[in-house]
């Protein structure tokens, strides 16, 4: 019995360093492919130029001070914030959808924590050598070799972290100019602070914290369990096949062929420990599904490699459902999508994506709103007419100046008072407030208490004419 009293427990839990072994296989290739693609996009995108009439000539740039985001030909203004909300909904639903189908695919292949940790491990391997060499290096006392190798590793980690941080900042300004100003000390202090913070956090998260981020910090890692169902395809160890009746056993003596192993009641698992050695999260998949598993598939590659080399069938660890594995006589794994939960997520996903696409495609270059001024709601003029006033906001989201005209075709001629501004010129990207008045004679009010403002662009005929319903208020409607 272990001594579990307070005195024997250290104040904090010591992390055992995880030194994963390199593995080859289709999951490793897939992960490397995703890594190359993601890095290409992330590191190169800020350097892609894009022709624009007005604005920063960079394909993707988030101009925070100018309050507009440029994504290729799409310009996003603060008033489009609901697109962001929609995008987050879609991303979350897509995550739930994928998790229900194939487990934590995002964690294992796409999450930036996984990608950067993977990169840092590549660096480790490149500088310090394979797993046995790295283990030896950790154990050996401090000498020139250890200092050189660890120093080089950390130096490269810091370089990668720095370039990651700098690239992130480049999304918020014109990249060539920003890089130049950054290195001559002329950039904004926010840029330096962001680069410092991101460099340190990347260095710490991918170099030291690694799987602890997934286990202790990331909320998704913890609530994924409610999204798994028995039919979900997850990375699973076929324990019926692996353990047999008598449990796993190494290949020794006469236990070298499947026939003799099965005859003695042992399973196919030869307990080589490769699946544990390749695991970046430091778990043993043979203990079953667990919250630390990020579903990266490396143990599948590792096990398959071993199974092939000893001539046993592959797939002892594979993507399979709990349901299928527990049945004892598993059928070939298949993606079971005919489930209410999956279809539900899918319907929501398609609905929201359609909404987003339609909304983005129907974006006009002019955004208007009309607000009735409520203080005072109406006023009686000296000739007995009643006047309401309206605050019209005209926003020009196109990349050229535009001239707008406000009219009220439903109302009698002369009711609309535009003051001295018969047409309104709005510069590109600007937003303008215009006050207009509507005066009606008391006997006209009943007929016109609801009417439309029509705002059209005189310069951009392709813009839709916007019709904005409005109200006319008077003492009659107030009582």
């Amino acid at each position, binding site marked *: 019995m*272990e001594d*579990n*009293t*307070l005195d024997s*427990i*250290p*104040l*904090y*839990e*010591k*992390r*055992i*360093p*995880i*030194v*994963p072994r390199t593995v080859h296989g289709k999951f490793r290739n897939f992960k490397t492919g995703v890594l190359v693609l993601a890095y290409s996009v992330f590191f190169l995108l800020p350097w892609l130029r894009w022709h624009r009439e007005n604005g920063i000539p960079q394909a993707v740039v988030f101009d925070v001070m100018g309050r507009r985001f440029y994504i290729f030909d799409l310009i996003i203004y603060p008033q489009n914030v609901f697109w962001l909300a929609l995008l987050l909904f879609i991303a979350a639903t897509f995550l739930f959808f994928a998790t229900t189908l194939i487990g934590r695919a995002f964690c294992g292949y796409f999450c930036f924590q996984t990608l950067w940790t993977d990169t840092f491990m590549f660096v480790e391997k490149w500088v310090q050598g394979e797993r046995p060499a790295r*283990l030896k290096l*950790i*154990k050996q006392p401090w000498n020139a070799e250890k200092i050189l190798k660890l120093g080089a590793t950390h130096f490269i980690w810091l370089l990668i972290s720095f370039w990651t941080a700098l690239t992130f900042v480049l999304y918020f300004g014109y990249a060539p100019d920003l890089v130049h100003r950054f290195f001559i000390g002329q950039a904004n202090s926010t840029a330096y602070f962001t680069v410092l913070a991101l460099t340190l956090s990347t260095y710490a998260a991918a170099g*030291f*914290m690694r799987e*602890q981020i997934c286990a*202790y910090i990331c909320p998704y890692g913890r609530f994924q369990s409610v999204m798994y169902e028995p039919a979900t395809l997850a990375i699973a160890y076929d324990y019926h096949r692996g353990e047999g009746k008598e449990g796993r056993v190494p290949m020794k003596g006469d236990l070298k062929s499947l026939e003799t192993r099965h005859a003695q009641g042992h399973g196919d698992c030869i307990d080589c*420990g490769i699946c*544990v*050695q390749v*695991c970046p999260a*430091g*778990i*043993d998949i043979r203990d079953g599904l667990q919250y*630390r598993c990020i579903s990266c598939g490396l143990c599948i590659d590792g096990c398959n490699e071993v199974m092939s080399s000893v001539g046993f069938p592959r797939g002892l660890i594979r993507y399979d459902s709990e349901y299928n594995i527990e049945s004892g006589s598993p059928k070939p794994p298949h993606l079971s999508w005919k489930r209410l939960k999956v279809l539900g997520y899918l319907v929501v996903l398609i609905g929201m994506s359609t909404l987003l696409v339609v909304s983005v495609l129907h974006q006009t270059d002019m955004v208007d709103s009309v607000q009735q*001024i*409520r*203080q*005072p709601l109406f*006023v*009686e*003029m*000296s*000739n*007995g007419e009643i*006047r309401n*006033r309206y*605050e019209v906001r005209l926003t020009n989201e196109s990349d050229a100046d535009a001239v707008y005209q406000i009219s009220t075709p439903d109302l009698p001629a002369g009711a609309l*008072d535009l*003051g*001295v*501004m018969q047409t*309104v*010129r*709005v*510069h590109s990207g*600007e*937003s*303008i*407030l*215009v*006050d207009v*008045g509507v005066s009606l004679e008391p006997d006209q009010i009943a007929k016109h208490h609801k009417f439309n403002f029509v705002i059209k662009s005189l310069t951009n005929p392709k813009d839709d004419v916007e019709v904005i319903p409005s109200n006319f208020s008077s003492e009659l409607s107030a009582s």
Partner: protein
Amino acid sequence: MSVNNKQPHVPQTTGHVWDGDLQEYNNPLPNWWLIAFYMTVVFAIVYWFMYPAWPIGRTHTKGLMMITYTNNQGVTKTVHWNTRALLMEETNEAVAAQKPYYDKIASTPFENIAKDPELNSFVLSAGKALFSDNCAPCHQQGGAGKMGLAPNLTDDDWLWGGHYKEIQQTITNGRHGYMPPFGSVLSDTQMTQLADYILSFEKIPVDPASAQAGNALFHSETAACYYCHGADAKGRVAHGSANLTDGIWLWANVPGGKTVADKESAIKKVITGGLNKGVMPNWGERLSAEQIKLLTVYEHDLGGGQ
């Protein structure tokens, strides 16, 4: 270190046992968490030295951080960091950001301000803020005015004139409306006749004979109303005398009167006691010339101006 990379998973307990089998897990904190916690403690201690922190009697520790700001008189001071100085600094920045607009307003003729969409847009936003701070206590939010207190600025009836220059004059120097009391000069019947005459402009059913008598009285030397209100009773902008022929009232609550008699008595009350309360303070000393110019355009916009 485990050769297998595998993390230990032995649940530890605090050692207490209740009811024989109920135990409490004692999962130790991860190292990074503990370090982060100590860092917050260090941060707090550094903060105590840098910023105002601890109360000592009637004062407090001032901290090492200094802040430089420029006060209202244009004097630049460096003091221990405090939020008041910070506010002053940020206010100065905001004022500096508005300056190009105010400069443009100062140099642009009134009519052209209203024609320039961008400048006019600034007038609407900044004017609303200035109006709410300075004018709204009397003229009400949005310039709706209040019966018996301050005129409605959104209608087209201007006591002192609705041209830009007149509005600017009104704001800069203030106004003082005055009407002498007639209680000792006119009889009750005469005042009723005058009230009926005025109400007849609004097509309110009054006794025609009485209104006719009021008309005569209005233009006579006895009451001499025409002297200020004009022979057509439409008021004189130079005097700030009211236009009595439209349906817009400030001092006599005619719209609030339910019966003709109520309306009559509202007017008679004003005639009896006169007026010495239409006072608008002068803002020339409190607001800058540009602010007054901006407010002039804003108020001109409110009522459609003249």
